[in-house]
């Protein structure tokens, strides 16, 4: 017993009078940084600062240039007007911004199951050479330029998908977004042009463009699901799907959300493929199967050539709106990823 209390006296601050006044205060510890560390710090922080600065410069540049146009019509009218004619001082982003979001949503609805399935197939089912081939093919898909996707969508996909669009609108036209104005299912010679150049077809093409990036992110996170937990599930008599549901999907949740948000960000900004496919209209069109759509990026590409001065400022304002929208999406994504308790974090 005495031995224990003696030990305790040594390791804690003595409180008996003989110990004298307590003059101890925390000492300063100065750490001399090695040269290699100083260099590393300098290079890495320079990189970080430059990226941040470029981001801010883009934002400032857009804001400065957009002020003239937004001030001319007022921010409320700018957000709510559907037409786009800066020449008559009557313009707004209501139609193009809605179009952008609709196309991105169609793309996500198609791309999410596709990339989830692809990434699970690659990590959980495919083996050996087949697995490696699939990975490179998916990466190759990401390397196809978007203008090629646009051309392919315009020249090939559109003609082949119109039948499906027609079927969808005939049977599900009672759901407002699938309705097509002026379509008559009873007409034996329907007008196919009604179904072309639509939000749906643009969204399909954009979906194919965002599948690779979503797939790689999901594949990466799924493949890191710990072997120990996988075996744990199998040892309890799990089927492969049961193991995936209880181990792989919870572990890869962060990757699924992150990949989806990355895909959404890319879909919102996609320009040339949409520009090629849609027939631009300046009215909000929730009928995704019906001809006529628009997007902010396509608007800028469409009007850039004929713009100067005030009309250019109007385009800058549209660009600023898109910039802010993508920022919101990305910040939301990182917040969601940060909050979701992914298995990846508790492993650390």
């Amino acid at each position, binding site marked *: 017993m005495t031995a224990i209390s003696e030990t305790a006296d040594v390791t804690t601050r003595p409180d008996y009078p003989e110990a004298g006044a307590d003059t101890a205060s925390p000492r300063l510890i100065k750490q001399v940084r090695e040269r290699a560390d100083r260099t590393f710090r300098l290079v890495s922080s320079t990189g970080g600062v430059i990226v941040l600065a470029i981001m801010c410069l883009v934002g400032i540049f857009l804001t400065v240039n957009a002020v003239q146009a937004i001030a001319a019509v007022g921010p409320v009218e700018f957000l709510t007007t559907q037409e786009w004619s800066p020449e008559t001082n009557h313009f707004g982003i209501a139609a193009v911004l809605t179009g952008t979001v609709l196309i991105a949503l169609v793309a996500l609805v198609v791309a999410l199951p596709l990339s989830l399935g692809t990434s699970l197939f690659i990590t959980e089912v495919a083996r050996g050479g087949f697995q490696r081939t699939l990975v490179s093919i998916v990466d190759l898909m990401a390397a196809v330029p978007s203008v090629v996707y646009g051309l392919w969508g315009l020249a090939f996909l559109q003609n082949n998908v119109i039948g499906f669009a027609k079927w969808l609108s005939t049977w599900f036209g009672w759901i407002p977004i699938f309705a097509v104005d002026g379509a008559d299912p009873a007409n034996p010679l329907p007008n196919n042009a009604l179904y072309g150049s639509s939000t749906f077809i643009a969204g399909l093409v954009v979906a194919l463009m965002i599948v690779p990036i979503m797939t790689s992110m999901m594949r990466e996170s799924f493949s890191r699901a710990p072997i120990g937990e996988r075996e744990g599930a199998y040892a*309890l008599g799990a089927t492969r799907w049961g193991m995936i549901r209880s181990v792989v999907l919870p572990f890869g949740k962060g990757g699924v959300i992150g990949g989806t948000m990355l895909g959404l960000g890319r879909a919102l900004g996609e320009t040339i493929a949409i520009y090629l496919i849609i027939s631009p209209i300046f009215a909000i069109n929730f009928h995704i199967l019906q001809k006529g759509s628009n997007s902010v990026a396509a608007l800028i590409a469409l009007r850039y050539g004929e713009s100067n001065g005030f009309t250019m400022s109007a385009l800058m304002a549209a660009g600023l709106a898109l910039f802010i929208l993508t920022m919101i999406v990305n910040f939301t994504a990182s917040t969601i990823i940060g909050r979701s308790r992914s298995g990846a974090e508790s492993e650390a």
Partner: protein
Amino acid sequence: MKTLFSARTENHDEPDLVEHVQQPGGLVADNISAWFGDHKVLDRVSLSMAAGEVTALIGPSGCGKSTFLRILNRMHEMIPSASLFGEVRLDGDDIYAPSQRITSARRNIGMVFQKANPFPAMSIYDNTISGLKLAGIRATRAEKDLLVEDSLRKASLWDEVKDRLEQPGGGLSGGQQQRLCIARSLAVSPRVLLMDEPCSALDPTSTRRVEETIESLRGQVTVVIVTHNMQQAARVSSQCAFFLAAQNTPGVIVEYGATEAMFAHPQDDRTSDYVNGRFG
């Protein structure tokens, strides 16, 4: 456990918890050889593990104990290059027979791993009954509550976690995680429980708790435990098998028998050297 759900045994067509309360099973490994690619790691190993008893597999590293254990519940074939010869019979039925489902073999023959592997994001409660969900067994909330408490008690973890069952399993200490894994395995009422060095990453106190758990399982479930710890083998097991692999040759069982006899009067010199700590 056997009486726990007896009230519900009648008038139930659907598979429920009752049917999964089982007697300990006798496990026989017959003439097992195993390979990884071209490399043979086990050579014609036969071992009989008596129902309800604790059998310890001892031997130096790399002698094929863990491989042998993983063969007993078909975890071996998860490794792409792995192959084997021979039969593993649970109460007479070869678990590798074409008619046998791999999922039911693994449910009947549970496994606890060297590194505790609870599902980290799942709550302690859900971790304990995760086997039910994975096997598609439905249960009412009351049944689940009973099963969770019973399984956690068996794994001597209940008193430590009963007030925080909804917290994630990943937040427990290493020893608690390992006992949670034992509870999780017991919740599906296996007939055999395989343990692959369950205490090698645990502190002495946790090790003692796990050993007490193994002790309390005697008679309820057949236990096969791989251990590097001679004292542990002596403490928990009634039967013991000594594995050995000479340089570049596959592993074999050098000696097998009652633990007490094997530690007191080993028949083979190599066994004697090993159990007395002269090598390995």
